[in-house]
């Protein structure tokens, strides 16, 4: 791979990536993957967010505030989204793949939050 060459590569989940033929509507959703430079930046951003996460963990005055948990959740969600979009190529891939992933993910998150309201610490706090 020419690391300075930003030449795009085709998505290989579609016929378009193998040949010019196969004109399907879904195939048009496949775009170029990120370049080496973008991968490098993504890795750097992920590392920096992880460093910040661990850093705030060691600030006692911050861990006692109400901002601590939301800030960690937001940083974690950003890291999650970055990996899914750039490393898993969901930003560049077909819409069906996005639906197959985000659909169950939404169900999973809603279930998790519902269970926390029913049985978790949130339920205890609301009851008291």
């Amino acid at each position: 791979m020419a690391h300075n060459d930003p030449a795009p590569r085709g998505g290989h989940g579609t016929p378009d990536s193998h040949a010019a033929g196969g004109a399907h509507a879904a195939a048009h959703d496949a775009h170029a993957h990120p370049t080496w430079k973008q991968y490098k930046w993504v890795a750097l951003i992920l590392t920096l967010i992880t460093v910040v996460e661990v850093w705030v963990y060691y600030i006692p005055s911050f861990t006692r505030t109400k901002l601590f948990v939301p800030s960690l959740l937001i940083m974690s969600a950003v890291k999650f989204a970055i990996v899914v979009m750039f490393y898993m190529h969901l930003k560049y891939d077909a819409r069906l793949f996005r639906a197959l992933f985000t659909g169950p993910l939404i169900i999973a998150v809603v279930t998790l939050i519902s269970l926390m309201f029913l049985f978790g610490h949130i339920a205890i706090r609301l009851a008291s």
Partner: protein
Amino acid sequence: MSASPALDHIEAGPHGHHYTTTGLDSRKIAVWAFIGSECMLFASLISTYLIYKGRSVVGPFPHEACNPPVCATALKPILNIPVTSASTFVLLMSSLAMVLALAAVENRDVPKYSLSDRILGSSKLWLWVTCILGATFLGFQSYEFTSFVHEGLSIRTNLFGSSFFTLTGFHGAHVTAGVIWLGTLLAIDYKRGLGPGDAINVDIAALYWHFVDVVWIAIFTLVYLIK
């Protein structure tokens, strides 16, 4: 060939791959559906951990010290954040190595003139790096599990131990499966070389590997960092 010429390209692609009526590779659809189902599996395990969090009657506890009479002897908070932070970094870097392995396979036929191009274009190198980083993560996890057992926390000790070992153990099993999968790709690469025609196989393995990484991103925050 199908009876209808319009469906010919659906049955088999130029590399013998079978595409669905969506125009997408059936194996990639399957792996995304599998990843979707895995999201729900890990959500159930994380939910269980969070529901039981702070409800253990006996120690050791994740973030709090345990003193007599709750514990027979004084115990420190059991989670080792520096070690887990290092293992998180290792897994993140393994994801970078995996995307570089995939890019190297896709661009195998592209001429490489400089040394850096040849290094970046070596699928064997990046698959090895991914495997080694995955194995290193498993080493960190083995160290963590062993130290927990030595400090008196097993899967049978308390609610925290049960839910923690189940969640992280399931994740570790997924990482182990991923390392074995990458090992098979490496073996194929040594035997006959992985080329652009194999990119879909490497891509599917990469999707699984990155999924294991994103699950750990969630576990690291929800289990280790949130007190």
